[in-house]
């Protein structure tokens, strides 16, 4: 195979880590005339060129085999791309990226060694433990969990979720027992984050996952691609960013969340009663929502610049509102991996 064969593989993804926060909420999509099949097409149309171009994908999906779980779709995609590259034996192509699957305590307890071994050449499962999240040993819940409904489990789960989102954003080393520190594999900081769907009610943690991920991306200057046209918390974020200055939607207040997600009130009370369990940098609902709204307010009016999309202002707004899958994919790729669309 000649080296020219690599003209079909973009190169701009090399060394990048692109986080895909894409979740399916049936009602959101069906009200917009689509179902999970459309979302799966969108995800694979995005992830294919990214993986082929050498980008690593960060996707915090679970491992249960269910229709709305995209973990296995991404694994199969990366596995196929790796096999193809192996057989193509091009010397000029960048290696196909990895799937980084960050899993917060206690979710990773469900992943068996058999599953991990099966996908070991495509996927790195990154377990975010209570210790890694900075929870003091004295307040850590037993692992494995002995009392599932205990307060410590509820609070620590939320803390670990927030810590995980931060570690995904800023990157981390993977500590491997028996390996010298300087040999630890590194997971680079995020190069871009794509948001689509997401729950605004009934979520786990202190605030909706996509809200916290958007906040972290804005704080750490990570290019942010919000596909708000498909609804969910990405849609709420989009609407807020596109609204005139000074308008604070109710979804960016703790009162609204405490009303619609009762667990939020419980977490707030637990955090107040156990301040020692809250590691530095972990924000409760009100604090995080205030910080997010501040960022949103600052971004209004110059979205392309503030979200660092690499697109024009018009394209950025279109990306945030379109329900056309092709346009959404095209605009994301144009911003993240321009050589994948030219």
């Amino acid at each position, binding site marked *: *195979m*000649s080296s*020219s*064969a*690599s*003209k*079909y*593989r973009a190169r701009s993804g090399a060394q990048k880590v692109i986080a895909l926060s894409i979740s399916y909420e049936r*009602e*959101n999509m*069906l*009200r*917009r*005339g*689509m*179902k999970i*099949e*459309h979302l799966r*097409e969108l995800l694979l*149309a995005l992830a*294919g060129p990214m993986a*082929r171009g050498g980008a690593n994908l960060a996707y915090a999906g679970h491992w249960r085999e269910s229709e709305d779980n995209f973990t296995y779709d991404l694994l199969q995609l990366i596995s*196929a*791309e790796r096999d*193809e*590259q192996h*057989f*193509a034996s*091009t010397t000029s192509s960048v290696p196909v990226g990895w799937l980084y699957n960050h899993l917060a305590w206690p979710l990773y307890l469900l992943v068996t060694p058999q599953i991990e071994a099966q996908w070991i050449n495509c996927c790195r499962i990154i377990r975010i433990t209570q210790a890694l999240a900075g929870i003091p040993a004295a307040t850590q819940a037993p692992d494995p969990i002995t009392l599932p409904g205990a307060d410590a489990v509820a609070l620590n789960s939320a803390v670990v979720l927030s810590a995980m989102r931060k570690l995904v954003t800023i990157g981390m080393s993977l500590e491997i027992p028996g390996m010298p520190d300087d040999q630890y594999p590194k997971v680079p900081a995020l190069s871009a984050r794509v948001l689509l769907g997401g729950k605004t009610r009934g979520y786990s943690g202190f605030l909706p996952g996509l809200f916290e991920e958007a906040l972290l991306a804005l704080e750490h200057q990570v290019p942010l691609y919000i596909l708000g*046209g498909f*609804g969910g918390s990405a849609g709420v974020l989009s609407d807020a960013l*596109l609204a005139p200055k000074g308008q604070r939607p109710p979804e960016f207040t703790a009162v609204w969340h405490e009303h619609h997600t009762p667990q939020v009130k419980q977490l707030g009370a637990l955090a107040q009663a156990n301040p020692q369990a809250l590691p530095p940098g972990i924000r409760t609902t009100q604090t995080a929502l205030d910080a997010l709204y501040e960022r949103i307010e600052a971004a209004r009016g110059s979205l392309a610049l503030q979200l660092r999309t690499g697109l024009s202002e*018009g394209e950025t*707004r*279109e990306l*945030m*509102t*379109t329900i*056309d899958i*092709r*346009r959404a994919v*095209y605009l994301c790729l144009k911003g993240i991996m321009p050589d994948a*669309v030219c």
Partner: protein
Amino acid sequence: MEAASGEAGRIALTARRNTGLGVSMTDRTIPEVYVLWHPGCQLGEALASSIYAWLRPGHGLGPDVFFRSLPRPDGGGDPLPLPLPGEERRYTAGIAPQPDPNPKVTPRRNQVVTMQVLVLLIDFNMVADASWRYWLEQLSAPSPHKSGPTRVFLPVALDLTSFNIPSSIGRLNFLRPSGLPLPINPTAAAIATVARSLCKQLTESLCRLLLGHLETRTEPADTSATSGMSAAKISIFLSHAKKDGHKPARRIRDYIYAQTQLAAFFDENDIPFGTAFAHVIQSGVGEAHTAALIVILSAIYATRPWCRRELSVFRQPVLDKTHHAGAPEFWRLNPLLVVDALDSGTHTYGIPEVGNSPHIRWTDEQQDLEEQVVTLVLRDALLRTFHAALGRFIPGKPDGSRIVINWLPDPTTLLMIPRVREATAELEVCYPGKGLSALELEVLDRYFPRVDFKNYEQVLA
């Protein structure tokens, strides 16, 4: 009806059907499919997913399929789904959508869609819902606008009340999938039976709707659901070695006669030896005509010269001579389905002309396999026609260095296109869908180093 037979025994099937749908096609008909079902319809979502999977088989191939069921987002008390593109809906005061403060750019595909195919999954919930009835009446009313896509209705009867839908739709021919009514808690297998039957009937309807376009291309577009007539024509050729491929061929032919609305002709002896069949194929393929070939690949097939000749003639891409100045060179290839009828333990030789065509394994024991074969080849003919129409929207390059094809490329078929085979300068070949894998593209690159392969999505984005 046309037919021929050669040394090995072949069937040529020609269907001329009245669509009964009152629409006229052009050779640029780009359909977009909408599946509508009432939120209370238990079966709707599963059937909609089956339709999607059938019409969008992967690689980004096939027309767009969208759904309409749940009320539109932020619709207040409005029980109706999102309007269809181009639909002018009158709202009750208080539930009208707010003007969009951020008008969206018109999606690219919507600019080329010329037909909305509405598959209505009708059950008692839809029939009894006054809002839905009103909506369907409005959708089926003649549009005052001459521009915009034609709207076509394909009603599906899910129960006996379905025919009580407003008469503008109720008087159309209904699709009636088998396996209904389902029990209270149906098994997945029971639902799959209904879905398979529905996809089969839908395929036949869409074929009648879309594959007749070349005969009626001069007729003006008509947006009504019930006026006018159009004839549809598709030829299915069946090529097999008489000695050992006769049994599947006979079952497929019998199925077409007995179970489909396609007219069929089969005679192994009336038509002179070999050349006539090739001539029929050649004229069918050579003219702007939709055809599909089913090859019964038996142990002896590859060694029969007339079988190989038929296959070779059929697999010759055809240059579209109707393209206008400035348009890229457009090549069309009709679909081929290979039925693998090798007996266990037998062997045969590969046939290069087959290229990357789909194969289906034959077994005498499976009762409904002929139905699958025929439905699959009709679906592929449908998709190929759709891609041909979409491909015609791809603009040419000023230096003429762009060629458009309507199939997923493979070395054998590409070598039959002179400009690709002899490419001495940079040339771009555009193919349908979202793209081949990098490995497939790199293999093509070895054969055609001066050719750059791009998919329709890349070019039209």
